């Protein structure tokens, strides 16, 4: 071992001993033996070795050992960043600086720890996300003095913004333990049991311009769904089916992290999950919404349903709330009655006359509800708040229809689940879904009644 040099000075200290870094590099290769990127890196390095056989054996690794800029745990990174950044000394130095600059108050070291699932993060900082995609993550903050680097204020703000932009609810260790303990003891922080929903409140007809709309609130979670029907042309491959599109938008009023483009990732995730749960397969088979009822003239004219959801308040369990809101909004939807004058020749576009007064009620008996079971440590819970969601290992969303059939299933979160647990979850979701369905039915009836009163 060479002299002990504070790691944040190593890149400037010439006296940092070569062998240590070499050993780190070899350690690294040993550690990641079989990793395709490393193998690729190795083999590309070997080509260089064959070109320049005079170099030291360790120089097949693309850093020269005479310049040891990096802390050993920072050192080799089997990333495309290295391969396409052409690892010159200069880039490496800037990389090191980047690492230190990424956390202005406390520089993290990137350890070699591998995490089972790559963390999904949108590309705020390209290097960070690509490192994370490869399973690298910052090690525990070291207690070395804060970085000596001066970073301009705007830069710092940008970095801090990117670091906190995706942050979930900040909870202290004690609170986390309290939440997990409560779930283990079947008494959650708001006094609910594990398989209990929060009180649900339903309003219908909140957007007068839309064909149907609903607002559903579960605790502080607050979503609005509007449904707009427009005349369109059926897809040529499915001439006997209408089209339904689901778009979800997360409003920045719900949480500061949805500001700017922050909510996009979640919005797409929610839209996809709802499409999968409500619209069935790509061919439209097994859809909760009866697509064939949307056709006016086969192959020519159909209704396009645009289902737009807006998340106004976010306190966990958005998917269930959105699915419930869609169900309520669909039951509130009136589709105008149409009279069709077919043209003389079969190729003509038929004349469609849309009535202003008469509306047809949409059949919603087949629309499923979504029950999300969130797994926290060893137990799973229903209707998790955002604090509880921050503790989840994985979550399974199961859509159940009136007959107790499963219409769709999506899983979020990294941790794997035992198949038997999933089967268990499905049967629980079926049971909970039935209760939720009947609750929603009565709420819809009450909401319609109160809307009529006004």
């Amino acid at each position: 071992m060479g002299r002990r040099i504070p790691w944040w000075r190593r890149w400037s200290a010439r006296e940092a001993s070569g062998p240590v870094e070499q050993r780190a590099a070899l350690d690294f290769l040993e550690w990641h033996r079989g990793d395709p990127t490393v193998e690729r890196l190795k083999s590309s390095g070997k080509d260089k070795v064959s070109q320049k056989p005079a170099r030291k054996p360790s120089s097949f690794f693309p850093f020269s050992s005479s310049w040891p800029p990096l802390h050993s745990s920072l050192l080799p990174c089997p990333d495309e960043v290295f391969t396409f950044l052409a690892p010159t000394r200069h880039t490496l130095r800037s990389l090191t600086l980047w690492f230190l600059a990424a956390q202005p108050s406390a520089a993290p070291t990137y350890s070699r720890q591998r995490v089972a699932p790559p963390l999904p993060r949108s590309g705020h900082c390209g290097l960070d996300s690509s490192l994370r995609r490869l399973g690298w993550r910052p090690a525990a903050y070291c207690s070395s003095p804060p970085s000596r680097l001066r970073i301009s204020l705007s830069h710092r703000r940008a970095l801090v913004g990117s670091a906190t932009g995706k942050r979930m609810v900040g909870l202290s260790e004690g609170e986390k333990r309290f939440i997990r303990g409560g779930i283990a003891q079947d008494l959650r922080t708001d006094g609910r049991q594990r398989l209990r929903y929060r009180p649900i409140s339903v309003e219908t007809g909140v957007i007068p311009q839309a064909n149907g709309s609903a607002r559903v609130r579960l605790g502080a979670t607050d979503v609005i769904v509007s449904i707009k029907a427009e005349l369109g042309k059926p897809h040529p491959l499915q001439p006997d089916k209408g089209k339904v599109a689901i778009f979800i938008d997360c409003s920045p009023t719900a949480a500061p992290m949805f500001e700017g483009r922050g909510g996009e990732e979640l919005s797409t995730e929610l839209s996809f999950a709802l499409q999968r749960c409500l619209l069935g397969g790509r061919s439209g088979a097994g859809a909760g919404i009866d697509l064939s009822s949307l056709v006016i003239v086969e192959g020519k004219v159909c209704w396009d349903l645009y289902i737009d959801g807006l998340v106004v308040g976010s306190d966990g369990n958005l998917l269930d709330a959105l699915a419930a809101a869609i169900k309520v909004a669909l039951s509130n939807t009136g589709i105008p009655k149409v009279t069709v004058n077919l043209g003389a020749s079969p190729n003509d576009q038929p004349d469609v006359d849309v009535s202003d007064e008469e509306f047809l009620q949409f059949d919603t008996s087949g629309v499923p509800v979504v029950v999300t079971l969130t797994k926290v440590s060893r137990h799973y819970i229903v209707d998790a708040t955002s604090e509880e969601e921050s503790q989840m290992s994985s979550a399974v969303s199961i859509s159940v229809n009136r007959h107790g059939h499963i219409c769709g299933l999506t899983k979020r979160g990294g941790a794997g689940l035992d198949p038997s647990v999933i089967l268990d979850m499905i049967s629980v979701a079926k049971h909970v879904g039935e209760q939720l369905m009947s609750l929603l039915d009565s709420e819809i009836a009450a909401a319609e009644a109160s809307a009529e009163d006004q």
Partner: protein
Amino acid sequence: MTTMLRELRLSLNQTQRVRLQSALQRLQDMASLASAVTVVADTIPVNHEDSILKGHGTSDLNGEVVATLCGVVERVNKLVYVRAQRARYKPEVGDIIVGRVIEIAPKRWRLEINFSQDAVLMLSSMNLPDGIQRRRTAVDELNMRSIFEENDVICAEVRGFQHDGSLHLQARSQKYGKLERGMLLTVPAYLVKRRKQHFHHLENYGVDLILGCNGFIWVGEHVNSNGENDMMVDQENREGLVNKSEVGQATYEVQEQITPLEIRKHVCRVANSVRLLCALGFSLTVEVIVDTVEASISSNTDIKDILAAEFYVQTAEREVQRRVSLTRRKG
């Protein structure tokens, strides 16, 4: 009134709705007698003969002083201003607050306390865990994370404003410090009134309740704040454990971390009572909270049903009773 009912978004049946409406109406009548409450565009009566100073939340309209905020009219000598109800917390020296650490900076922690800026807790203005008074060294500075980490919930006292306008806190007592084994509730700051005592140990329930003046309320399992006492208990435990096997010690440690179910029930009950009172907009004092908890126990209300319609109505009616009896006593 109807907006308030809609805000509560309860599934009330007809009788419950009528009861709640009448209770809230009576509360409102009583309140309007008591103090000068304004809403936006209310005229504030002033004597134009003495010169007045228009302060925050007031505006001049056709020669009249008009409120631009909902709140309470305050008068200090010539100054007339409106203290807004739904506003951020405004610290005063000596307030006891609960906050969350958001950043560790050199020699200081930065805390989120629902003020317009972050509060600062200097390393030098808190007692070190070893309890010895000495200068803080560089080593102490490096070990700051062993005292408070990011996201930790801590309670402290407002020390004052510095010259640069930043707010400084202090935690120079055993009772201040990190809060664990419980939950943090946030309520509007105006619901918590400044009183002599903000730390409450509800002995019947084994629950600690800290009503931070900034509207952050900590409800948690009771911990002994007295350092000496704690140490003695520790020693006794250790002596008792000497005879036992290591397995026993391990289980003891595990059990120490988990809140017993009985206490957790009480914690949840107190927390839900706080949530209920906050939703109804009643000011949070320990008497009212304990009253609500006791009422929920005596009426056999389930913990989660504290937030259901029937108990809302009962609580509103009880508050009416309480205020009526208070005014009678005064009269």
